[in-house]
């Protein structure tokens, strides 16, 4: 990750900007939505993703600490992905997720709730998304 940030710094113009946009782990909600009502079912198991998140945060904090970038702004917002049914959600997770898991007991409860809901019911995952803006700077001492 440090190498990637070094390359990003290189291709940016002086005072150019970097946007870091990624999901945060630990609070990704699984919810069933029906006729505007939201039923919280459980959390995605993101235990396996924690090391990568910690490493990403550390890499960014290091380049800021060393003066290569300054952080100008940081926000967190909710980002949702919706599926019409659990089978499609599971297929997506199998294709896209490296470490995250849909807990079986949570999905069983979701399945039952969806089966008893009216037409148009959807299932979603809502992530906490980080968006941060950094500006390129020139540190006093070059360490890359």
């Amino acid at each position, binding site marked *: 990750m440090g190498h990637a940030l070094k*390359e990003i710094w290189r*291709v940016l113009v002086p005072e*150019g*900007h970097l946007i870091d*946009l*990624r999901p945060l782990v630990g609070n990704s909600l699984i919810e069933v939505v029906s006729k505007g009502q939201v039923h919280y079912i459980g959390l995605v198991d993101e235990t396996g993703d924690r090391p990568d998140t910690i490493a990403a945060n550390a890499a*960014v904090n290091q380049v800021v600490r060393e003066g290569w970038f300054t952080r100008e702004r940081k926000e967190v917002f909710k980002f949702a992905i919706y599926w019409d049914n659990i089978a*499609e959600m599971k297929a997506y997770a199998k294709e896209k997720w490296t470490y995250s898991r849909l807990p079986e007991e949570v999905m069983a409860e979701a399945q039952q709730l969806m089966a008893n809901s009216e037409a148009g019911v959807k299932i979603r995952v809502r992530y906490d998304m980080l968006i941060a803006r950094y500006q390129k700077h020139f540190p006093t001492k070059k360490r890359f």
Partner: protein
Amino acid sequence: MSIEHDPEEIETKYLHDIAPVTKTRVLEIGCGEGRLTWRYAASAGSTIGTDLNPTRLSTAQREYPPTLRSSLLFSQAKAETLPFPTKTFDLVILAWSL
């Protein structure tokens, strides 16, 4: 497969609020199939979307709007060895990639 990403467009609102995209030269790292790219590229001066996955890039290249064809390119590249000259871009977007 029926899947909707951010139909509330919250990500788009935050991106336009925080990222100085308008008329800038943008590099998006981790563009995938272009889902995020479509949300800002029309405002940018020019955009290059990169990803490691050739299948996803093929999808992006198949699906991108004709109105963006003169200002948007997709390219397979690694973030650690970007194939661009120094000081090329005003804005780099690291999308779900760090």
